[in-house]
């Protein structure tokens, strides 16, 4: 296929945490709200003059200092973020909104706070908010209160951000515009000969997490228009794979999978398109904040939601996505040392394989895939081969 016109542009945005759009927005005097977890409702960080960016640590090499502070058993993402913060990589942030989602991200945020590693302006603040442990109305009430106390009020008091219902509705409007564009772009992955690769889609989706959203809409629209007439490759992929699992901001991981000849046809991970880029439906008969929180509580696919409806529901959701996107197999990935996903990966692997009949690759990976490129590639190649063998056997049996 011909390269997408804006692919390089999107890729460049992922190379630095203070990318060109972040710098541009800061130069315009906008307030940068850094956040660390998919359980923080994004539209609440994009109110008025404020823009939310999820922290990443692209091209992480050594995490020696963070390892001293947090030990070598900590999730590599948490260590990479602390290390980058110590290096001064997030000094342009005006606040840090951190949920007590998983223990390790919480400890990362607390180390940042105690060590004072983000040397932003004098009004810089860190807020930790609780996130519900179950998908129920009690959880919605909790999240509403938490968002008021730990996101909206501090933003208003420190930076005079408009936190009115109108402002939230406006922010959700822009959020939904981005979500609709990403969803429309992602639909092309359903085609048997898709006109977008999983890697390209991951790059575009990921960019929407690390940039002021309103500044990306033109490029996203342009890309969607371009895809309408893009000619797909005639050669079919060896296998169509769904990638699910833990925090994944390393697009190289998707590239490695596709370099082995597969297509990543669907995704379900933090920084991915589901549920993060699903439209938030708002009605006029209830305040916008409650509706946003309800969306986040009920759409959440994070393993920290522990009620059994959700525990089973997460696997059913993967099955639904795999069928919808015609996946031949599923890769359950887990960032090394992540406790929630260690168990979720094992359970998901067993259930998707035994209850739903999919071939599943269960994979632990480092934060930066390139640090164990060989092992990851070997595992994926073997997995793809096993799917191909299975297909041949099925064809043989049908004959």
């Amino acid at each position, binding site marked *: 296929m011909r390269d997408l016109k804006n692919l390089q542009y999107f890729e460049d945005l992922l190379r630095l945490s203070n990318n060109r759009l972040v710098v541009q927005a800061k130069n315009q005097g906008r307030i940068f709200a850094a956040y660390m977890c998919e359980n923080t409702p994004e539209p609440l960080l994009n109110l008025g003059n404020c823009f939310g960016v999820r922290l990443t640590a692209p091209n992480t090499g050594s995490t020696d200092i963070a390892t*001293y*502070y*947090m*030990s070598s*058993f*900590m*999730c590599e993402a*948490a260590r990479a973020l602390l290390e980058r913060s110590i290096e001064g990589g997030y000094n342009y942030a005006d606040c840090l909104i951190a949920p*007590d989602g*998983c*223990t*390790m991200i*919480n*400890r*990362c945020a*607390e*180390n940042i706070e*105690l*060590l004072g590693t983000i040397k932003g302006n004098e009004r810089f603040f860190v807020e*930790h*908010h*609780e996130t*519900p*442990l*179950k998908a129920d109305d*009690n*959880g919605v*009430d*909790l999240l509403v*209160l*938490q968002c008021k*106390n730990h996101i909206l009020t501090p933003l208003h008091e420190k930076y005079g951000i408009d936190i009115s219902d109108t402002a939230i509705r406006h922010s959700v409007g822009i959020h939904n515009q981005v979500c609709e564009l990403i969803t429309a772009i992602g639909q092309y992955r359903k085609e048997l000969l898709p006109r977008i690769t999983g890697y390209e889609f991951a790059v575009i989706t990921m960019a929407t997490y690390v940039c002021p959203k309103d500044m990306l809409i033109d490029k996203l629209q342009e890309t969607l228009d371009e895809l309408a007439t893009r000619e797909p490759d005639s050669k079919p992929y060896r296998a169509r794979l769904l990638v699910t699992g833990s925090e994944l901001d390393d697009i190289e991981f998707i590239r490695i999978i596709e370099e082995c000849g597969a297509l990543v046809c669907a995704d379900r991970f933090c920084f991915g398109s589901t549920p993060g880029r699903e439209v938030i439906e708002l009605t006029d008969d209830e305040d916008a904040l409650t509706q946003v929180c309800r969306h986040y509580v009920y759409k959440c696919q994070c*393993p*920290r939601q*522990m*009620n*059994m409806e959700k*525990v089973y529901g997460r696997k059913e959701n993967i099955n639904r996505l795999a069928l919808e996107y015609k996946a031949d197999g599923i890769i359950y990935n*887990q960032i*090394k*040392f992540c*406790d*929630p996903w*260690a*168990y*979720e*990966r*094992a*359970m998901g*692997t*067993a259930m998707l394989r035994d209850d739903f009949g999919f071939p599943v690759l*269960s994979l*632990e990976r480092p934060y930066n895939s390139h640090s164990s490129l060989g092992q990851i590639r070997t595992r994926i190649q073997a997995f793809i081969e096993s799917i191909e063998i299975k297909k041949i056997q099925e064809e043989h049996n049908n004959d």
Partner: protein
Amino acid sequence: MTEPMINPVNRPGDKNLGKLFNGGKVMKRREWRGFKDTMYDFFRWLKIWGILINVSMGKGFVKALFRYRWLANYLAVPHMIDKNTLGQRGETLRITRTAIDFVVKEMAQIVKDNNRADIRCGNDKKLSNRSVLCDENGMTAFMMGFPTLNSAQREVVTLFSANLINQNCATHYIDVAQQYGIPGDVCPMPETELGISIEDDFAVFGKCAVQINTTCDGSMMGNGLIAKRLEREYHIPTFQLAAPIRFKNDDVQAYAAEDIKKAIAFVEEHTGAKWDWDYYFECAKRVNITTRNRWEWLDVNSTDYPQFVGSVFCLYNDTNYMGNCGKSAVFPTIDAKIMQLVKKGLENKTMLGQQYRHRCLVWGVQSHYLFDLLYWMINCWGVVPLSDMLSMVIDREIAEVDTPENREQAYYDMAYLTENMIMRNHTHGGYEALLDEMWKYCEMLGADMIMLWEHIACKALTGMHGIFEEQARERGIHLVWVQHDLCDPRIANRQSIRDQFNLYMRTVMREEPLDPSLEVIDDNNMW
């Protein structure tokens, strides 16, 4: 502490305790504590065997013994007690034995009920139908208003207490869990629980189960897999009770209280039992007695003559708060007996060892397979463990008078107890709960040293490693790191744990051991 405090009393009996260890699975012989104390210990030993024989006479015991791998660990209960009374004399020995013997009695009752109700063994349907399976890692506060129900703690006896008895009790199950894809870096405790479930080695009974997220991410996630087997194979419905993580904040309390209400409704729905407010407030009174007594013991421990200390202090608090939560009417009488002994010990200025060199606060998550290390610290180095993180449970009393307002407050109190589950009330709730409170208690108890159990797979704890060091340096407090892997001795064996302490005492403190025979002891093969 600048000058060591020398014990003016000549302590009778064995002086070099290391000679009791000869590399075998048990001690060469029991400790000679002088005539009076040895006789006391002997009769207590007889009583323990009485309890064990009583368990073995229970319904379903023989079948259970030949079915469940974990049950064999209980053969070594007397050995566990010997470890936890090493070097003790006089009031100290009596306090420890009173507490631990009662803990054993409580555990024995749980094992007995387990065997009796289990569908594979005793198959007592009546008992099973009034049993609610309670999560090991949670307070059983939501059961405080159900006088007719059994808060069944099958996980406690399968793993928690079993691991205090046999250091290797978890390893088989850890291997099973890892065989099914759970990584080796997660906390081995929930991993073991899951391994037991995978192997189908839990007793099966109960009308329903309530799981709690309190300990950690690993425990919460392991619950899902355990619930899957309970629900799908054994048709035991489960409820997941949510305890907020940032529980120190006022804005999470309504959420927590609401979920307690839901848990109670769930239990009522599945067991047919009705919540009894009279019984609840009766239990609440007992919880408050426990709290008051514990604070009084801590007050004593902040004097020059601490009395109720060490792993048994911790274990007693564990049992009293978590499993019991005011439901046992017997605990206050045991508390009273201990209180009497503590007061007597204080009056007599009884010392726990030959010499006190350092007053130490024990923090962090303790090793289960070396729970008794705290007594070794006294005997070997003269370091007195004044209290430990797990014993710092709640610091306020709960409403105990039945009024309409207090009935609403009760849900918040049960939530408060649940949120403040032993250990998690410091490992969660933000760094203030872990760091700031450690310094607060350090000052309160007059400690000049901190022994920090660093459970390497406990991410909530190790995530603050660097900050602990920096703050200790700023305050000029000796901070001794002792790393371990909670219930997997293959990762850090007993001597390697003691070596970390020895190394600090020799190189940083430049001290010589009080009992050199204990510095290196050959107990890695022991139960």
